[in-house]
């Protein structure tokens, strides 16, 4: 059989990057340094100041790739742009010409005014710290802790979901009951109970988010698994005596991916809300580093006046734009997946 395949012309850089391995590489290149930078700055030692530099081109490339992949949906592209804007801010914050976010300069300076040799685009807070700088630096913690927590919740939820759905019977009953117990706690109540018990910190937020979201994720994956495991190709794998782990990882997991990715975008939004809200309530991340929830908390205590409302509005709009980004991404992805 002769196949007359045309010799392909040398593909562009972007086209060559459009494969799973390259994308995963870029994600790691962006994400690992940022995570270390936020979670364990001391580990980085002398690399601390340069480690985020390669993440900037990685983020830009990923954005270009993502826009190419989702160009069919305007909504998805808008969502992607919002999310990637904040990702770019997170990785480039150290290199932007910003005032030190923790340095008190001129308290209660309104936006677009100059005070003590500094121009404040968004004004300063009650301690005189630059709000623009705090808003940009503030996205780092929300993004890193939020995404990490969601990822951990997904790994655990998906594993249990696959096991419960595929093995059914006894496994399913135990896992489903445990998740029903957890799901019967209102989310915020569960957060408060866990964080009161463990104490407020980033790591404990991961625990809390996992305990709160993994059961819901498990339910979704379980449902999808129950559906997919009746397909003939799963049947075919079973009839050739494949190990259950093979069936779960190779036959089932790739096919639950679609709905899971959409759900993950939504859940990233919820997690961002949760982290900001918990910090606002005093149960989450601790001062003094800039953080949107903290900014709201501090401003709500001492600046409830019309002329100081920018102190509340800046972090409120920042967090809203990121969540809107996640939600629009989810909507766009769902629209695209339905179109196929």
């Amino acid at each position: 059989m002769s196949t007359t395949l045309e010799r392909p012309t040398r593909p562009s850089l972007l086209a060559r990057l459009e494969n799973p391995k390259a994308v995963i590489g870029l994600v790691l290149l962006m994400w690992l340094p940022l995570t270390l930078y936020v979670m364990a700055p001391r580990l980085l030692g002398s690399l601390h100041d340069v480690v985020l530099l390669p993440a900037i081109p990685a983020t830009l490339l990923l954005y270009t790739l993502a826009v190419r992949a989702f160009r069919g949906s305007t909504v998805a592209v808008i969502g992607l742009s919002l999310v990637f804007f904040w990702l770019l801010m997170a990785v480039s914050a150290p290199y932007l010409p910003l005032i030190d976010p923790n340095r008190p300069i001129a308290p209660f300076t309104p936006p677009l005014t100059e005070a003590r040799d500094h121009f404040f685009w968004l004004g300063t807070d009650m301690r005189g710290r630059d709000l623009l700088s705090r808003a940009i630096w503030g996205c780092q913690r929300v993004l890193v802790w939020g995404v990490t927590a969601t990822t951990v919740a997904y790994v655990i939820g998906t594993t249990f979901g696959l096991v419960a759905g595929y093995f059914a019977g006894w496994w399913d009953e135990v896992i489903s009951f445990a998740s029903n117990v957890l799901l019967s706690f209102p989310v915020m109540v569960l957060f408060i109970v866990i964080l009161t018990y463990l104490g407020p910190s980033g790591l404990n937020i991961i625990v809390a988010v996992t305990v709160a979201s993994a059961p819901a994720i498990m339910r979704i994956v379980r449902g999808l698994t129950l559906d997919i495991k009746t397909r003939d190709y799963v049947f075919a794998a079973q009839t050739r005596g494949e190990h259950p782990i093979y069936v779960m990882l190779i036959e089932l997991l790739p096919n639950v991916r679609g709905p899971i990715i959409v759900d993950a975008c939504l859940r990233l939004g919820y997690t961002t809300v949760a982290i900001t809200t918990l910090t606002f309530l005093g149960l989450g991340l601790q001062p003094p580093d800039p953080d949107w929830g903290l900014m709201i908390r501090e401003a709500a205590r001492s600046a409830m006046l019309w002329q100081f409302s920018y102190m509340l509005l800046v972090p409120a709009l920042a967090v809203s734009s990121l969540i809107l980004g996640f939600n629009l991404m989810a909507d766009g992805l769902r629209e695209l997946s339905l179109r196929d």
Partner: protein
Amino acid sequence: MTRLILQRLVQMALIMVFASFVIFAIFDTDEFKRKLAVAELGGFGVAALSEEAYANWLAQKGLDVPFHERYAQWVGDVLQGDFGHSFEKNRAVGPLLAERLWNTAILAFWVFALMIPLGLLVGILAGMNEGSPRDRALSFVAVFTTSIPEIATAILLTVVFALGLGWLPAKAAMIQGFDPWQLVLPVLTLVLYAFGYLARMTRASMAEVMTQPYIRTAILKGLPYRRVILGHALRNALIAPFTIIVLQLNWLLSGVVVVEVFFEYNGFGRLLLEAALFGDVYVIQAATLVAVAVAVTSQLVSDIGYTFLNPRIRFGA
């Protein structure tokens, strides 16, 4: 169908037992008890508490008996309506909780009264004609409002209507007795956030129903469009939103914490948070238990309602 409901009831009871156990166990640690002892006996902190004084305190409170006896005791007390004593507020937890729950119930009533008609209407109008300009506009509004977290909505509304225009009070502490105007901003905040979710679910359900062959059958029977929507589509499309509305109660108990704290409204959520920050163990236990009870009950109502609304289950196949 009675079998299904009974099954659900048993499951719910099991969940309650299990959840109460978890709640009790979590706050039964040594650390918490030491904090309590310090709070009651006075002193300079947990470190300064002598082992002897602590042991005496435990004995005095009847806390030195084995875990399962204390758990049984606690469950027994709770079932008799005795939730213990609040250290921070220095009063019995039962009446305190009842008072706060009532306040939250008022809030919740108005939220639901506004959210349900708004959410359903927007969802139905959008889902009736999937992909139309009307659908796109309404869907965008729904995504937009749900994307702004309660805390941000609260800020925006306060800045505009209270600080800026001065039309409404910024706080809802109700210091001089009940004032309905103070309720407006908290209710609006919760409605804006929640209605979008309901609207999106209703839209999805409606849009799915509209693609079903039986809707085609109804149209090709020559029924007027109104009749197709009201008589055929809604009957099926509203089953899913109904269960969501009931489950929103669970969600409301989460959302209410932020809103009550921000607007200083004396409700259940604020009580829970204050207790958590203070380490007021009996209040946390009681409040959490009540929250779970509300959630579990709403789940049960939603399940039973679903069974009733869906003839496929009602007249079991």
